[in-house]
């Protein structure tokens, strides 16, 4: 099954380009560390999912590029074409001239309806190119105006036009100390709207990835490109082909469906966080060796202690003892309760990995059997030159604090009525804001009371 990617706004298009770049470079690599047959199967599966074959033989990304100003799309298209290894279709983009002005209301209420037909037309064409449509993957930031506002509108349109397809929104959360002054308003409006139309939100936070670039990747002058490449690597480690347990011998054909089934048992809980291990500069890879027990141990503690990366993990945090009525206060405060987790393992000796520690019932809420709350996907085919790598996609309290922080700041600004005139002039009223705040306070409450 194929996934159609919709790249929205500057961030969405910049990241989308890095994702397809990473996927393509991975399948072209000779570091598969597996049998030729396995490798070919992996390549075919990846191509089916993300690329279309053209007569020229150059894979064409299954993507629709949308932006309200022309510069980024223009750059994205030409960078892809210059690589010589893959490209975007020349007819799969839509752009306008004047941008959305970081105004969610402009993106949602003005650009959305105005350009709905043209955009959905492109989506329809991409969907028709797929033998079997496995769903939609949208990439956007929630801080600006296009990715956020138009992105929310487009997601709604996707839901209306494709009621039975899976929709996964990849949402980038901005730096806490601002890229955009009204980013918290735009975020609140985006998240609450997406919550009503998409199946799940897969989140990356700029602050977290920035830390990874600084501390793990040792990059001195970190650019957005660096950040986007780490994000692309993490997404690739989730979405490249894998074998799901009990899925037969071939690669899984329904990645989005499998993801939803594994991680979203209840519609109230759709925020997914992502962690990846190991993460290091490419130049260090030949000098590093890892053991699966070590990687799994770290990954599990990253989950429990809500660590952002494999350095600086708080090893003191422990899950509460099952059956104890008074949880140890220290641990209970910092312990990250999960609803469901998905671990994806790639590379050497994956078959031998013991994941029992992730099935510990004390990690989870009580609604699901631990066997159902935890899933693992594997492939012996190594990813992006990492001999071994493990990704964790988690529906847990990972994003509770950052979400609460964003809502708090937005509320603080809302109480002073600052900037509201910028939204009301495009049709988003104070009541609309209140509805969005209510939705998100509900989400916060739900995740808090796990």
């Amino acid at each position: 099954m194929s996934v159609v990617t919709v790249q929205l706004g500057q961030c969405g298009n910049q990241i989308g380009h890095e994702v397809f770049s990473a996927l393509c470079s991975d399948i072209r690599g000779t570091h598969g560390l597996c049998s030729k047959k396995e490798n070919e199967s992996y390549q075919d599966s990846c191509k089916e999912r993300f690329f279309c074959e053209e007569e020229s033989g150059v894979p064409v990304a299954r993507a629709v590029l949308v932006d309200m100003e022309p510069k980024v799309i223009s750059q994205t298209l030409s960078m892809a074409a210059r690589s010589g290894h893959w490209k975007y279709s020349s007819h799969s983009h839509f752009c306008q001239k004047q941008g959305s002005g970081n105004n969610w209301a402009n993106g949602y209420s003005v650009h959305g309806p105005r350009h709905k037909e043209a955009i959905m037309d492109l989506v329809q064409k991409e969907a028709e190119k797929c033998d079997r449509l496995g769903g939609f993957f949208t990439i956007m930031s929630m801080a600006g105006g296009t990715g956020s506002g138009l992105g929310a509108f487009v997601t709604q349109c996707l839901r209306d036009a494709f009621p039975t397809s899976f929709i996964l929104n990849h949402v980038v959360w901005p730096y806490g100390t601002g890229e955009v002054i009204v980013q918290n308003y735009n975020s609140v409006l985006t998240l609450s709207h997406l919550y009503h139309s998409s199946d799940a939100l897969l989140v990356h936070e700029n602050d977290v990835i920035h830390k990874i670039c600084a501390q793990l990747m040792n990059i001195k002058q970190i650019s957005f490109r660096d950040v986007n490449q780490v994000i692309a690597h993490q997404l690739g480690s989730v979405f490249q082909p894998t074998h799901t347990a009990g899925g037969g011998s071939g690669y899984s054909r329904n990645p989005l469906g499998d993801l939803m089934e594994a991680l979203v048992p209840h519609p109230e809980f759709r925020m997914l966080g992502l962690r990846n291990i190991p993460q290091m500069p490419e130049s260090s890879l030949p000098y590093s060796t890892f053991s699966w027990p070590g990687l799994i141990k770290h990954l599990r503690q990253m989950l429990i202690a809500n660590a952002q990366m494999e350095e600086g993990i708080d090893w003191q945090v422990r899950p509460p003892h099952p059956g104890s009525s008074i949880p140890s206060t220290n641990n209970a405060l910092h312990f990250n309760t999960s609803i469901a987790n998905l671990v994806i393992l790639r590379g050497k000796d994956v078959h031998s990995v013991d994941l029992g520690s992730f099935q510990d019932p004390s990690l989870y809420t009580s609604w699901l059997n631990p066997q159902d709350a935890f899933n693992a996907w594997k492939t012996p085919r190594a990813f992006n030159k990492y001999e071994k790598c493990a990704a964790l996609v988690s529906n847990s309290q990972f994003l509770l604090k950052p979400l609460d922080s964003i809502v708090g700041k937005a509320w603080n600004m809302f109480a002073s009525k600052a900037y509201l005139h910028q939204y009301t002039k495009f049709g988003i009223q104070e009541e609309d804001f209140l509805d969005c705040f209510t939705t998100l306070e509900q989400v916060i409450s739900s995740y808090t009371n796990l």
Partner: protein
Amino acid sequence: SAVSLPFAVGQCGNQVGCRFWDLALREHAAVNKKGMYDEALSSFFRNVDTRSGDNGPDIYKGKICSLKARALLIDMEEGVVNEILQGPLRDVFDSKQLITDVSGSGNNWAVGHKIYGCQYRENIVEKLRKTAEHCDCLQCFFIIHSMGGGTGSGLGTFVLNLLEEEFPEVYRFVTSVYPSGEDDVITSPYNSVLAMKELNERADCVLPIENESLFEIVNKIHQMINSGKLGSTVKQNSLVTSSAGSTKTLQAKPFDAMNNIVANLLLNLTSSARFEGSLNMDLNEISMNLVPFPRLHYLVSSLTPLYTLADVNVPSRRLDQMFSDAFSRDHQLIQADPKHSLYLACALLVRGNVQVSDLRRNIERLKPSLHFVSWNQEGWKTGLCSVPPVGHSHSLLALANNTCVKPTFIELKDRFMKLYKKKAHLHHYLQIDGMEQSCFSEAISSLSDLIEEYNELDASKGGPRIDPSRLKIAV
């Protein structure tokens, strides 16, 4: 691409405008090596096929034939505009973009606004519509003028009102040169306050500039160069005051240096809309992020660096110095000290080889010494444009919505009241058709209200005493 359309009104406006077009051409020439007409150029220039004469069709792609500025030049005296038409920019404009008269406005806002406004209304609207027709997409209007005279101030604000009526959805940015205390036009306070009322009500964003500040910056550069501390290592074309290929020295045309600073301000302001970068910043984004309440739309600007040394290798310490300078008193384009007043919002537009980590490091470093309003503690709007200005490896434009504009407005009010109390020169205004005493009282009232809004913000630090409690959800 989206077009920004400048209107130069009055003597000052046109002198700045002239510098602006000159520097814009130079900037694009430095980037555009192949001579192809591209999206970046199209935001300021049309490409006209002049082989069959001046009325040739626009060429949208391909080689540059003849670049024509998208602009309107308006002056009620001929001197400055004529000079432009005889100078190196003569081919960049055609007669359809000019509106001139001969006798000037006599430093009288009412003559500019009421008499010439009325007289030239249709002419302006027609030329405006024609110019707009040539634009695929009109993003914003720029008005460049001075506040103290008659044409720039009176007719300039008339044009502002016209723009709001004819194109209400297009943003209106105004770059206004405010008169200094020693201004030799006695009635400059009247003209400025009358114009302020229009700016309060009709402009989306105003960038106030004070000649004193420009003058001080020019002097500072002079001193640095002449002190011999830098000597020949300063890149001449990197001076924020430099003219493109002009053989006239700074002494011969002192105002050129000052006008170049303002021209550079406008170039930097629009750079991220014209050129690519990892975090684009459009003009409508500036308005969106820096104007939390409609009337509080006065933005204090600062440009750094003022010059570059020939040494291309820039250690990050020097990069950080650029950020520090942007917040220092002597880099502001008005007499103001943002560090000791209250920030409502701040924008940083960086050009050149600067990455997000450089931005973040400097924001973290400078934040603690700045006072932000309680509902916008992390209120930073940032942009990264890959293309630096000519002669630089990087540059920074800071725009602050800060209560430090207040003293400028208070002084203006005081100077106005000094004259108004004695009714000095009032008859020159009241004898103009359409002018009444109420025009004055309404104008000073508007200014007083604005000052009061800033006072309230300063007093309360912009926040409710108690943190607003969040919505409670029934579990």
